[in-house]
Every structure is written in C-alpha cells, then in structure tokens.
C-alpha cells in the first residue's frame, strides 16, 4: 500500500467516522440521560437527508441553508414524538419505549416514501467545492468539510454539557433522575430538551451524509445499527467514548475492505458483542455503580 493510498483511505475513514459520531452522539446522549434506546434515530437521520434533498435540489437553495434548517425540522419532529408519545410511558418497562420508537421507524419511512417516492435519490456533488489535490491524487473537498464540521459539533456538545446550566442539569438527571426531580429540576422538560437535542444531532448527520450517500427510505436501517455499535463500544451514554468508537468503526470500514474483504462486514458486530459481554460500560467507560 502506497503512502498516498494510505492517506486517502485514512481520510475516508476519518470522514466516515466523524459523520458516524454526529449521528451516534445523539443516540448515546438520549440513552445516557433518558435511558431510552431510540430506534427511530436512523429514520430521523434519513429524514434529515431527504430534507436536504428538498432544500438543495428541489428548492435550489444553498447547502448551508439545509445545514441550518433541516436539523431544526428533524428536531421539531423529535420533540413532537417525545411530548405526545414517549413521555407517556417513562414509567413502563424499557422494552415498550424501544418498541414505541420502532413504531415511528415504520411511520417515518412510509411518510418519506409518500412525499419523495421510493426511488433512490442523489444530490450532485458539484455543489460542494469539487476536489482538492492531495499527494498527487484528487480528493473530494466535501470529505474534508465533514472532517472539520464534526469536531465542531463534538466540541460544542462537550462545552454545552460541561459549562452551561442545561448541561449540568442533563448530567444531574443522567446520574439520578429522581434526585434531580426532588431538587426542583423540571425533569420532563429536561427530557424533552435532551430528546430534541439528540434528534437534532441525528438530523445534522443526515444533512452531512446526504451529498455522500444515496438517499433512500432504507438508508436509516443500516445507520441505526452502526450507531448502536458505536454507542455500545464507546459505552452507552458516554460521549467521548462514542467519538473514539466512531473513529474506530470509520477506519474499520475504510481499511477493512482492503485487508479482510468479506469478514470485515461481520467485524463491527463481533466488536459490539464483545463489548456488551465483557465491558457493558464500553471499552472507554468507567464502571459506574
């Protein structure tokens, strides 16, 4: 493998991993604070990608408009799901929360099908700055854009959790929601905020992925599984862990094909099973009692 090939594969993996992080971060944030495993996260990501198509191709607007507007619409949908449905069953068994979000997978996929049809769509790459020269190879500039946007999201999220009042409240509710409620924190409103923020992140992932991938109603089915894997190997609810997890999966996807070919596809699942069995707190998490 030449140096140039290595660098290109590495950058592909990095872009893939960064993209995966912005999606998985939302999933793991929602799980960490609320204890809800949101199956609809992949569908909301898919909705984000379709909204991007709607804004950029059908609406002939700038990509940045899509990056601003589409995740907000997705977050509104997420907020509606939380307020009207999910909120009613927090007292129940966790399985039912998972199943409720699964019902939304069915619903969202078919609504998208109604609005945009089942045929796969693509957004022409030409709108995103074309290519750059890199070690004698042409490389799509858009990948570099993703590599730079995702860390901004990560740092923003970290700063939000670390320094803002909302962040502190979220961390408090994640540790002990009953105690947080007893101390006068409005936990239901906080949960709505967390769910909105988490789905917003899924929407951002959808917008970023739209120019890279084929947009289809089933695109969320694979992403949700990948996000589960990232969230699990990083430790469910552990944001820095999921960043490392996403980068590992990204590189695996990128280099794996040239090294192990067919077995590569099974490797993330094996990693996930090992993490769940031997380190349920994730490879990068501390044991929490």
């Amino acid at each position, binding site marked *: 493998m030449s140096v140039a090939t290595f660098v290109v594969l590495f950058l592909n993996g990095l872009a893939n991993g960064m993209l995966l992080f912005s999606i998985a971060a939302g999933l793991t944030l929602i799980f960490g604070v609320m*204890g809800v*495993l949101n199956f609809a996260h992949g569908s909301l990501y898919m909705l984000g990608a379709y909204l991007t198509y709607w804004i950029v191709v059908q609406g002939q607007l700038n990509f940045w408009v899509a990056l601003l507007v589409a995740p907000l619409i997705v977050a509104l949908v997420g907020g509606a799901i939380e307020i009207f*449905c999910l909120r*009613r*069953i927090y007292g*129940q068994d*966790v*399985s*039912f929360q*998972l*199943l*409720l979000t*699964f*019902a*939304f*997978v*069915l*619903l969202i*996929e*078919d*609504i998208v*099908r*109604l*609005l945009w*049809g*089942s045929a796969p769509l693509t957004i022409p790459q030409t709108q995103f700055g074309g290519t750059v020269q890199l070690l004698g190879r042409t490389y799509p500039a858009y990948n570099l854009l993703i590599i730079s946007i995702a860390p901004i999201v990560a740092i923003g999220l970290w700063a939000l959790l670390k320094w803002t009042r909302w962040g502190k409240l979220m961390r408090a509710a994640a540790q002990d929601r009953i105690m947080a409620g007893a101390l006068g924190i409005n936990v239901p409103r906080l949960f709505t905020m967390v769910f909105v923020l988490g789905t917003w992140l899924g929407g951002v992932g959808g917008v970023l992925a739209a120019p890279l991938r084929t947009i289809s109603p089933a695109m969320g*089915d694979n992403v949700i*599984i990948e996000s*589960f*894997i990232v969230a*699990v190997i990083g430790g469910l609810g552990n944001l820095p862990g999921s960043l490392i997890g996403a980068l590992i999966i990204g590189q695996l996807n990128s280099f794996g094909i040239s090294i192990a070919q*067919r*077995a590569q*596809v*099974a490797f993330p*699942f*094996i990693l*996930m*099973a090992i993490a*769940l*069995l031997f380190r*349920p707190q994730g490879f990068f998490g501390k044991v929490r009692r």
Partner: protein
Amino acid sequence: MRNRIESIASIIGLAILFLLPLLFSPFNLVLLTEILLMGLFALSFNLLFGYTGLLSFGHAAYFATGAYVCAYLIKISIPFILAVPAGVIGALVVAAVLGYFSVRLDEIYFAMLTLAFGMMVFTIVFQWREVTGGSDGITAVSPTDLGIPGLVVKIDGFANYYYLCLVVFLVAAYCLWRIVRSPFGELLQASRENADRLIFIGIDLRRLRWTAFTIAGLFAGLAGALWAPFQRVANPEMAHWTFSAVPVLMTILGGARSFAGPLIGATVFLLLEHVIQSNQRYFWQWLASWPIFPPSLAERQLDLWNFFLGLLLIPLIIGFRGGLIAYIDKTIAMFNKQLKERGK
C-alpha cells in the same frame, strides 16, 4: 360446564381449520399458511418476551437458520422429511450457542446483544455466497413429496402444503402450550416478575433463561424450515433485523401476556396487511387530490402498510399493552356482566 364448552369449541375450530381448503381459493390458502407459520414464529418469540421478559431483537436469526439449512438440503436432494428436522436442529444449535452468551445480559442490553448476534448471522448468510447464494439466497426450493421411502405423500400444491403446516403447527403449538404450563414455564414467569427472588431460592437463572432461549430458537427454526419451501426461497432478508421486528410487532398487536396473543396478532397483522395492500389505491387517489402531494402519487403504487401498522401500534403501546386479546377479554367480560344483570 365451561370445560365442555371449551372442548366443543376447539373441536369445531379444528374441524373448520381442516375444512377450509375445500372452501377457499388458492390465494386465501397461501394467506392461511402464512398465518400458521408466522403465528408459530411469533409464539416462539413470546416464550422469551411474554413469559420470560426478555426482548430478543434477533429472533430472525434462528428462523433464517432453519430456512437456510432446510433449503440447502432440499437443493442437494435430501428428502423433505429429513431436511426440515435438520433445519430445526441447525436452529437449535445456533440458538444454544448464541443464547449461552445472550442470557448473560438482560433488559436493553439483552435486546442489543441479540440484535448484534442476529446481524452476525445476517452477515454470514449474505457473504458466504458459495453455500447461501449471497444476496439472491437459495432459490427454487420446491419439494414435491415428503420423501418417505415406499410412501407417496404429495406436498406440492397449496392445499397439501397447508395441511402439512396445519398438522405441524398444531403439534408445535401444543408442545409450547405444555411448556408454558409446566413447572418450567412457571419458573420462567417467576423470573420475569422477580429475578432476584428466584436466585435467592436457589434457581440457576442463566440456565433457566438459556433453556428458554434454546427452545424459542428451536420453534423459530421449525417455522423457518417450513417457510423456505413454502416461499420457494431462503433469502438474507429472513435474517435481517427488520425481519426480527415482525414477531415483535405481531406479539404487541395481539398481546404478550397470553398464550394465544401472538397468534391473534399474527392473524390480524397478515389479514390487515392483505386488506390494506389491496385497497390502498383509494387512499392514494384521495391523497393525490391534496395540493402538497404530487399528483403522480396515485400511479406510484406505494405500499403504505407500514404506515398504517405504525399508526395502529402507537396507541396500542402507549395505552393498551394487553394487546387485542385483552380487548377481546374485556368485551366478553362486559357482555357476560350485562347478561347476568338482565337475568336478575
């Protein structure tokens, strides 16, 4: 008195099930066979979900193992009568191995781990092209005869296969029913209600759950082994996590807390699917008259079954976790009460 009514009702029910092929068109028989096999799949899932309290999101793996082993053996000219049990044993082995690890976790982590294992099986059937045929699967699986030496028992044709599935289904459902009513079944329900107490009185919880997992995998494999010759194909979709969701949804629809719930769920699920898929063009035509939808909508031939299913499931999950069977029970109880009051 009540027992007698119940036994008469079940004899009449059985007679109807056996006489249906005389009345129904081949299409309806296909639907009935689907209901039997998916019903069995959902029953096997509910041994874990409703009785043991473990939500498996990878149950399709065992269904697919049964289907693939059976289809592969039929392809290499092994008689049907041997291929189906081999499929069941295959599913049993896979479920025993994966279940051994899965039962180490519970709640959401159990769901995630079974999902991961299920997707591993999916990857194997998808990638191991030499044996499984890759994305096409194993096609043209069409046995014509049971394959007992010296005895001709035809199983091609819709009615013959329906009878075969009916017999197998009745035997399997009876076995499952005996299992959940045995002391073992009582222990499973006890572990669902309070696992800690069960450990305190000296029960090996993991082993208990492992056994339940393996039995559930076995019956899922049986459903799959009969499904592949029925569909004439074993394909990777049967192992995908979206297929694992099907018995989950059927069980939620029918009600997880009763034995017949998943069966009723499977029946309603497949009947509704059929009714909606054959009538949804009217819905498109109505929608196409709205300004926000493109007028070409009516010609797109979209399948909106999942949309309606989602709409149906959301209120069921939020407000009525007993499923349809609890609703039926409630209605019957109300009816009885009214009758009694009238008698006064």
